[in-house]
């Protein structure tokens, strides 16, 4: 690789990282605002205009709090837990195509940090490693409740990953590729995958909620009934990391959903506007972020609508409903493809 490319990728990497953190930070603010609005309240409005400095205040509070590591805990693992959760959450952003191509000095740069040809598998791998963050956190705390909470969280994530995988298989069947940039390229104009895979999308969406531990699947964080779960023993910024990782995951999931099913950075009608390619790319990226924000809002909207599932209901939904639905969906899609080929 040339120096210019490396420089561009490094800058992009840095920008994406900062954007990820910023979005996650302001997602906490937005979460509280949405919660308040849905409950006819106003939400944070003291720190800065419209409470916009609230995330900073919250962060400061997290840093200032006393840090406790239980005597019996395994110190190394105890610190590793939140670190893994945070790292894996951030890593996934590397393969998402954040926009089209930028032309600088007659050279074409794509707004994707790295275009893996197995992009989807990479996402799944990262999500699975995220489970380790939770499991290790629960195990290292040396607390029965934490361990039980961690097992619960891990089993939930693993169960829903199956159905998620099935819904992705249908997508792979029709697109014929695992690379995210190619999947996006196939969705130009109105060829969004949501129109071809509505059922798959719904399954994927539900599983994404479960993977992010978002309500109604937020069993890992019910404080009153289940004593918190895997992060019971965590305090100050270590707890903050776990919670923050969840918001990053939400952002990344929203990005993945928009990429896979809603055409990513493609904007219908944009080609009629007669714009220069660079401007078009930037508008496309902005549109992509609009989609992402919509899905983040959807995550919050659902959270403040639905009560939490009971654990057996959760498992029933995952194994007895979504999994069979996913298999049926896969067979139907495969059948249609076959019929298309032979008729």
């Amino acid at each position: 690789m040339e120096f210019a490319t490396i420089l561009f990728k490094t800058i992009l990497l840095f920008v994406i990282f900062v954007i990820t953190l910023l979005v996650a930070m302001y997602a906490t603010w937005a979460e509280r605002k949405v919660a308040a609005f849905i409950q006819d309240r106003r939400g944070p409005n003291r720190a800065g205009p419209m409470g916009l400095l609230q995330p900073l205040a919250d962060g400061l509070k997290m840093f200032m709090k006393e840090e406790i590591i239980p005597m019996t805990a395994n110190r190394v693992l105890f610190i590793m837990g939140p670190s893994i959760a945070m790292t894996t959450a951030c890593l996934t952003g590397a393969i998402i195509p954040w926009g089209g191509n930028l032309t600088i000095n007659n050279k074409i740069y794509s707004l994707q940090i790295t275009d893996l040809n197995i992009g989807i598998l990479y996402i799944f791998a990262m999500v699975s490693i995220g489970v380790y963050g939770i499991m290790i956190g629960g195990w290292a705390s040396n607390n029965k409740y934490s361990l039980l909470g961690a097992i619960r969280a891990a089993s939930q994530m693993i169960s829903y990953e199956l159905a998620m995988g099935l819904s992705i298989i249908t997508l792979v069947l029709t697109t014929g590729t695992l690379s995210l940039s190619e999947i996006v390229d196939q969705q130009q104009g109105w060829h969004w995958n949501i129109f071809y895979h509505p059922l798959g999308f719904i399954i994927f969406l539900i599983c994404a909620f479960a993977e992010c531990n978002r309500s109604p699947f937020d069993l890992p964080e019910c404080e009153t009934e289940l004593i918190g779960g895997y992060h019971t023993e965590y305090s100050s910024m270590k707890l903050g990391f776990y919670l923050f990782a969840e918001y990053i995951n939400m952002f990344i999931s929203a990005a993945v959903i928009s990429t896979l099913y809603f055409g990513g950075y493609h904007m219908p009608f944009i080609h009629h506007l007669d714009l220069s390619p660079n401007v078009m790319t930037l508008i496309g990226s902005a549109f992509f972020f609009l989609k992402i924000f919509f899905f983040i809002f959807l995550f919050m909207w659902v959270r403040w609508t639905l009560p939490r599932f009971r654990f057996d209901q959760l498992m029933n939904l995952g194994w007895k409903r979504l999994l069979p639905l996913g298999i049926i969906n896969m067979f139907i899609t495969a059948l249609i493809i076959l019929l298309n080929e032979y008729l």
Partner: protein
Amino acid sequence: MEKLTGRSKVVSNKKLSFWESIYLPAIIGGMFITIKHFFRKKVTINVPEQTRKRSDVYRGMHVLKRDDEGRERCTACGLCALSCPAEAITMVAAERKPGEEHLYREEKYATIYEINMLRCIFCGDCEEACPKEAIFLTDRLVESEYKRKTFIYGKDLLVEPLEKDKRIDVSKRQTPEVLEFKKNKKLTHNK
């Protein structure tokens, strides 16, 4: 069987159908309800810039009244302390010395009169019990504090100011019967 109330309902135990057990229709219905609230008018009142109007007979912090000539009405009879269910009132009585007639209305007065605002449940029984119309609850609020000690309010906080215009108006708390009674200036109580 005869129904005990008109509101009883027959509970159905039917099994959920497949679509019901996948919860989606119900979820979408619920989401429409919440999004409607998203755009509703907010009911929040921004304390302290805005205040909610309190009722005229709100039972807030107490006041120890003076009479028209500025003398303390309380005669340290102890009835308020006795009637207080929370045992929040403590007082020490003393005898009025010659030359203090302009300060205290009766021969006996309270040198120390304390209400523990952490114990008080603002029931208003002290107000009811007082034969001298000396203690009233008002629409003022007890300020928040950092120390327990500071919640014991002495006479410095409870007795209303001497100046006529700074007196605390409790006329709205008095029932028509009391107002009628007060008109009769022949009774010593009203002099």
